[in-house]
């Protein structure tokens, strides 16, 4: 009888029979998403979401149904590795499918509709499983890829458990049939083998029998020594389609009768259309209609280029929001003033408050103070924002690449005022996500436009629209004050900043400092917030690791040794920091104009140290080399992890060197890659990644590479120039005054 076992704390395992014969296993997880909205849906130990499904078909193929989007991070491959290894499957037998964006994905009805085909669920299972899942699943609209959660949550608690549970029920079914103890059966290469009796069968031979067995409430997971696929190099499953042009991104969707739309959002966030003159635009060739969305106008035409040309001919008058005269300088001045006022009046909120900072400051031999700031940042994914929508008979279909398919479904349903089951999401590859594709403003626009014009519409944002209507990494100011004793030891650390999002621990430091106060003040602006790769770590990594460097200089200590000496209580951090320093040949004497800087940052469960080498010549900063050490607990896919470090570093480097979204007259100034620059191939440093498998709980990969690059770079620039970079981006600094002309010129 199909059954279900309670698996406390982590989740719950279910089995079922495929319509075609075969085994289906589902594992429910307690959600670990960062999104706070989720918490209210999960209030008791009895509420779970099914996150992972495995099916074994009669032809012995194994399919993993993975709830994470592929945006290039290789998560689907790594998750599949985890499942296959625990099962004892042959790598070539395993394929993955991305879970569809239906609420039922999260409950047993998915089995009915998606995995099992038309087969009925055994009656005994339905009330229990549905009762357990429905309350959460029906109201739940999050299925997010973000927070570097794929491996450390879905992978560890879902894929591995699903694989191990499948292995155990298969082994037990075989043991029953062969009359041998289960402990003597080995699952290997998608086969069940009993050496002594020379019994041998493909998994599929026992799949149906296995589906009748109650899975253990806590299947035994392999130890790292037993891994055969995890930790090994496998080629990413999504790469072949990405070298021949066949990978289908959202922008590539083709729907019969589809028309194309271009859009212009209100330049000042919050403004709406007061009036528009469309006479010239509507007469242009191919134009079918002009849609007023309130905060944006869209032109629909036969082709995208026609729509874009006609859009330029629309005259719009936008409403006044009161922010029309606001610029970046005023915004930063407001941050500084709000922080100072809140600090003074005691209205800040504490993140950390340990020891007695006031007394320690009073007893200091040396007080060091500094003010840092970072600007707004856009995501600028390579694939500009887009979505294709069809609205017909009270139903809506949307084609797009999203980090959160279920969220897209619910947001679109809400915008069109229809029930979520009437919305269907067709997931495509994401041409970059970085946090941007977790919000669905574009999908909603496409749906509203398609509804108004009555034909399917592909909406593409221009690059300018993409840069000017992002959800931004916020601009942030951060004020520091530290007390040093006569030996240079930090006796007190105080930090106040504005903007508090996630993760909670982002502004904390790993160093042994007895007296600490870390707190924040409110200072709101009209610029919309978005999660940007590593979220709050992207600013606090720069702030804290730059300021620690300043303290090392103030204490007249070597920046690496200074950090090292405060980490005796943190052996993993110490090992990572030391690895990076040793591999980078820290301590070597550098020639004039060169500099070497170091940083250490734990984020999303992984610890990363980076050492950056720069050359500053004629005022130009050239990043020569980055040595990166990471302890992710265990690297499931070492090459995938290495690629994520390279990617996170270049992404963070673009921001550190150039990233600067400026506000002028209430609107974003920058618009394309010429004024919102990215690091290019000719500027890219050599990156070396060193992995430490400490076997601590597994951490993330997509984000932890990003926070450490800005401070390591700024610290290297200090060594090369003597200028302390306290405001990003670095390209706003003029280093030419430090240039020493070559002797032959003099």
């Amino acid at each position, binding site marked *: 009888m199909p059954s279900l076992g309670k698996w406390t704390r982590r989740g719950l395992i279910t089995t079922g029979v495929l319509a075609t014969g075969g085994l289906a296993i589902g594992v429910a997880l307690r959600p670990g998403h960062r999104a706070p909205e989720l918490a209210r849906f999960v209030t008791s130990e009895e509420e779970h979401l099914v996150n992972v499904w495995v099916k074994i078909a009669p032809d012995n193929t194994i399919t993993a149904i993975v709830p994470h989007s592929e*945006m*290039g*991070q*290789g998560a689907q491959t790594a998750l599949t590795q985890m499942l296959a290894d625990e099962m004892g499957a042959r790598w070539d037998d395993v394929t993955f499918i991305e879970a569809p964006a239906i609420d039922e994905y999260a409950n047993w009805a998915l089995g009915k509709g998606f995995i099992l085909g038309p087969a009925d669920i055994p009656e005994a299972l339905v009330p229990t499983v549905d009762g357990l899942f429905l309350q959460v699943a029906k109201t739940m609209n999050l299925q997010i890829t973000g927070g570097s959660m794929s491996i450390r949550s879905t992978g560890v608690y879902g894929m591995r458990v699903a694989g191990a549970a499948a292995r155990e029920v298969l082994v037990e079914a075989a043991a029953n049939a062969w009359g041998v103890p289960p402990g003597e059966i080995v699952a290997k290469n998608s086969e069940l083998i009993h050496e002594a009796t020379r019994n041998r069968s493909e998994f599929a031979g026992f799949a149906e029998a296995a589906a009748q067995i109650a899975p253990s409430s806590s299947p035994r997971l392999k130890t790292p020594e037993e891994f055969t696929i995890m930790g090994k190099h496998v*080629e*990413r499953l*999504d*790469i*072949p*389609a*990405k*070298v*021949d*042009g*066949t*990978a*289908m*991104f959202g*922008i*590539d969707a*083709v729907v019969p009768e589809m028309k*194309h739309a271009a859009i212009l959002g209100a330049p000042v966030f919050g403004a709406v259309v007061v009036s528009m003159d469309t006479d010239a635009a509507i007469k242009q*060739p191919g134009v079918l209609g002009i849609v007023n969305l309130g905060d944006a106008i869209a032109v629909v035409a036969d*082709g*995208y*280029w*026609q729509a874009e040309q006609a859009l330029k001919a629309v005259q719009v008058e936008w409403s006044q929001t009161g922010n029309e005269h606001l610029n970046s300088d005023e915004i930063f001045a407001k941050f500084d003033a709000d922080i100072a006022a809140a600090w003074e009046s005691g209205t800040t909120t504490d993140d950390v408050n340990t020891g007695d900072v006031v007394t320690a400051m009073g007893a200091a031999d040396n007080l060091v103070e500094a003010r840092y700031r970072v600007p707004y940042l856009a995501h*600028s*994914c*390579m*694939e*500009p924002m887009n979505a294709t929508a069809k609205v017909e008979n009270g139903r809506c279909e949307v084609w797009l690449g999203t980090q959160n398919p279920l969220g897209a479904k619910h947001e679109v349903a809400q915008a069109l005022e229809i029930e979520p089951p009437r919305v269907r999401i067709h997931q495509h*590859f*994401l*041409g*970059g*996500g970085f946090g941007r594709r977790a919000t669905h403003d574009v999908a909603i626009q496409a749906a509203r436009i398609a509804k108004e014009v009555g034909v399917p519409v592909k909406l*593409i944002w221009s*690059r300018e629209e993409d840069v000017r209507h992002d959800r931004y990494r916020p601009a942030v100011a951060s004020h520091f004050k530290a007390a040093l004793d006569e030996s240079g030891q930090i006796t007190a650390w105080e930090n106040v900043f504005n903007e508090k999002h996630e993760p909670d621990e982002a502004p904390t430091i790993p160093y042994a400092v007895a007296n600490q106060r870390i707190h924040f003040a409110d200072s709101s602006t009209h610029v919309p917030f978005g999660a940007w790769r590593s979220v709050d770590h992207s600013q606090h990594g720069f702030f804290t690791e730059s300021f620690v460097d300043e303290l090392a200089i103030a204490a007249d200590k070597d920046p690496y040794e200074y950090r090292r000496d405060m980490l005796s209580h943190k052996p993993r951090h110490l090992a990572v920091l030391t690895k990076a320093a040793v591999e980078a040949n820290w301590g070597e004497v550098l020639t004039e104009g060169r500099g070497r800087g170091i940083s250490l940052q734990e984020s999303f469960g992984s610890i990363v140290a980076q050492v950056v080498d720069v050359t500053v010549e004629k005022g130009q900063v050239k990043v020569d080399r980055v040595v990166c050490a990471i302890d992710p607990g265990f690297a499931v896919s070492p*090459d995938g992890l290495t*690629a994520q470090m*390279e*990617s*996170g*570093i*270049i*992404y963070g*480097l*673009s921001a550190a060197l150039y990233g600067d979204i400026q506000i002028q007259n209430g609107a974003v100034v920058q618009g*394309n*890659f*010429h004024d919102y620059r*990215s*690091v*290019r*191939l*000719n500027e*890219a440093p*050599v*990156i070396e990644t060193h992995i430490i498998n400490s076997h601590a709980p597994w951490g993330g990969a997509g984000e932890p590479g990003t926070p450490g690059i800005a401070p390591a770079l700024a610290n290297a620039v200090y060594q090369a120039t003597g200028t302390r970079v306290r405001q990003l981006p670095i390209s706003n600094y003029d280093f030419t005054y430090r240039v020493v002309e070559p002797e032959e010129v003099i």
Partner: protein
Amino acid sequence: MITLKVNGEVHQLDVDPNMPLLWALRENLQLTGTKFGCGMAQCGACTVHLNGQAIRSCVTPISVATSGEITTIEAIGAEGDLHPVQEAWIDHQVPQCGYCQSGQIMSAVALLDNNPNPDEAAIDQAMAGNICRCGMYGRIKKAIQSVGVQSFDPAQEVQDA
């Protein structure tokens, strides 16, 4: 009517001659491997070949392309018979999100066709126009160098001499 020769096939298109080639490829011919990234020749995602030279199709009016042979990512290799650059891209696990890779590969193929053994400066120059927001530049460089090394056969050089 505009005549366009793409991947060896001749097409007659009823489109505005000022329209950028990119949109004719993507919308009229449904060759969606060529990508839109910036619309102003800043990012290289739209790179195709016109008579063997890498061009940015997002700023090339279709009228300019009528006289030549256009090649897109779809025709660089064939299924089961990938171009050496595509093979190298898989060997070095280059793509992440993959969106820029059609353009990267087209730039790399054009580079190697003109210069089979490019040094680092030549690679920098040929590839600086193609942005990869996933930052896979180190892998792109190594992949290009590996193709260059493959095509350079010292034994053959000796025989030829």
